[in-house]
């Protein structure tokens, strides 16, 4: 708009107000940014930097730490619990994201059909995402209870199992249980955002494909999927980031147990830093998440670039 404003400014005799408004654009802009930037620098950028620093110190709660270089990382690399948490985090992220994507896409396709009460159905579907995660996790906690689990009760009544399943007492049961809870919470987000993407695909493409005799599967494979791929990349990046750094579900349902088998890096860093008081070590664990996050973001960024280029975009 600078281009548009210039000739006007040259033609019209400049009033002082116009000149001031135009000339102080940068100053005014800076003024408008002050509240946002002040908060973000003090509580986002500074803590991020402080986190890097803390990760290289042996700070404890209530005491100043000293710089110890990469000592925290060296001791973590010998710490089997840390590696277990890395494994858990990756397992949790991969398993939950894959299923969330599959069910989410399927649900989005179902919701894109002609349905009665469509907007109400959509509103209901989104509920698990709206309700506070911790509070719905409490419900899952109760559903997974070792003595009063409704799942076990139904399966026993159906004659499929003979005794109650110990959902949260066995390492693999516990892992799958929290993955299921995460899927439950994440599916609506994936489905509704993909639905928004589906609704932007022009029906004429499908009509053309119909005339050419394309099957349902072909239409999905050659129209829906390519048209949807940019939004899939973004949605799944967000989903992976949220899952990878998840804290609430694990903290509520298992607190990392049994014997650390569901500890994610986030919950382990909380345990070491806040419960255990070793702020430095906890910060080092948080910092260890950053390379994974950056990798995920870059992957989707370049994936996006590629698909945009395929669709004839400029970049």
């Amino acid at each position, binding site marked *: 708009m600078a281009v548009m404003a210039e000739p006007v400014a040259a033609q019209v005799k400049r009033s002082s107000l116009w000149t001031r408004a135009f000339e102080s654009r940068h100053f005014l802009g800076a003024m408008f940014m002050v509240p946002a*930037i002040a*908060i973000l620098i003090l509580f986002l950028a500074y803590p*991020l930097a402080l986190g890097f620093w803390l990760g290289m110190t042996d700070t404890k709660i209530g005491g100043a730490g000293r710089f110890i270089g990469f000592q925290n990382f060296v001791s973590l690399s010998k710490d089997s619990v840390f590696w277990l948490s890395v494994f858990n985090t990756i397992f949790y992220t991969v398993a939950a994201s894959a299923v969330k994507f599959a069910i989410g896409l399927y649900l989005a396709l179902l919701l894109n059909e*002609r*349905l009665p009460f469509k*907007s109400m159905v959509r509103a209901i579907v989104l509920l698990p995402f709206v309700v506070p995660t911790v*509070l719905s996790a*409490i419900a899952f906690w109760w559903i997974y209870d070792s003595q*009063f689990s409704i799942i076990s009760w139904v399966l026993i009544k159906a004659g499929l199992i003979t005794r109650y399943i110990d959902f949260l007492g066995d390492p693999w049961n516990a892992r799958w249980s929290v993955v299921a809870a995460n899927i439950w919470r994440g599916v609506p987000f994936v489905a509704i955002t993909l639905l*928004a993407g589906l609704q932007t695909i022009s029906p004429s493409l499908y009509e053309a494909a119909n005339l050419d005799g394309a099957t349902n599967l072909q239409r999905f494979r050659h129209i829906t999927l390519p048209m949807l791929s940019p939004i899939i990349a973004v949605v799944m990046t967000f989903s992976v980031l949220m899952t990878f750094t998840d804290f609430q579900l694990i903290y509520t349902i298992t607190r990392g147990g049994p014997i650390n088998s569901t500890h994610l890096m986030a919950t382990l860093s909380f345990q070491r830093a806040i419960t255990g008081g070793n702020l430095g070590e906890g910060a080092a664990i948080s910092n260890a998440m950053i390379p994974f996050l950056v990798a995920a973001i870059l992957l989707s960024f370049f994936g996006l670039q590629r698909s945009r280029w395929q669709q004839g975009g400029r970049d």
Partner: protein
Amino acid sequence: MSTTDDQSVGMDYLESFPRKFFRVYLPLGLIIFFLLFPFYWMAVATFKPDAEMYDYEKYNPFWIVHPTLEHIKKLFFDTDYPLWMWNTVIVSVSSTCISLFASVCAAYAIERLRYKGSRYVGLAIFLGYLVPPSILFIPLAAIVFQLGLFDGNLALILTYPTFLIPFCTWLLMGYFRTIPYELEECALIDGATRLQILMKITLPLSLPGVISAGIFAFTLSWNEFIYALTFISSSENKTIPVGAITELVNGDVYHWGALMAAALTGSVPVVILYSFFVEYYVSAMTGAVKE
């Protein structure tokens, strides 16, 4: 978004009902059952007396024979729950207002004033959106402690905007972009100041965007957990999610009825708000992703 709704179905009407039932309604019904069951279970446990809750042989667990308000009464009168509710409301409303104010200013400056370097600031704010709280909470705890904000509402009111401002700014930038610049030029020529333009033209025209951002920000702060868990220690200062998890469990004794009542009553306000503004909420959620 809804413009293609009616046309996108093509030759759908040719499909027979039984076929469509198995292809669409049945799987949809199953998924919705899976998504809603925990809420049903939460509600059932809230109104079920203890005698029925722990006896599956005598009472069918899916029904309530003698509904009771005992758990809710216990929650409201024997615990600090009303205080948690109050804290949650205060914190959510304040942090949402602060974030909206800061974001409107920032988004307007980035999108309309186009000051030097605004593009890079916009990008930086988007990157801020990608920084998860799980990485920030440890250094933030140190900062909150240094500033003397520890164990108070202010600690949360000031830290929640760190994830709300990037989101709101990004969303509002998208909305501001859709408002024709010519409107602002006219106002400029008529001698309006930038502030007047923002207040009288841009903001009223982008009201849906502001509402969307506000609703979404409110639910995000209502749901926030890790900061509230880390920065608050005394029971009377806790928010609902933290209070429910930490105060309603005495050692190994879980007060399931009260826990479920807390989960249900803590969810209801957000759900009510959401049900009034579904469209705004959805457009906030999808808008942030689509950009």
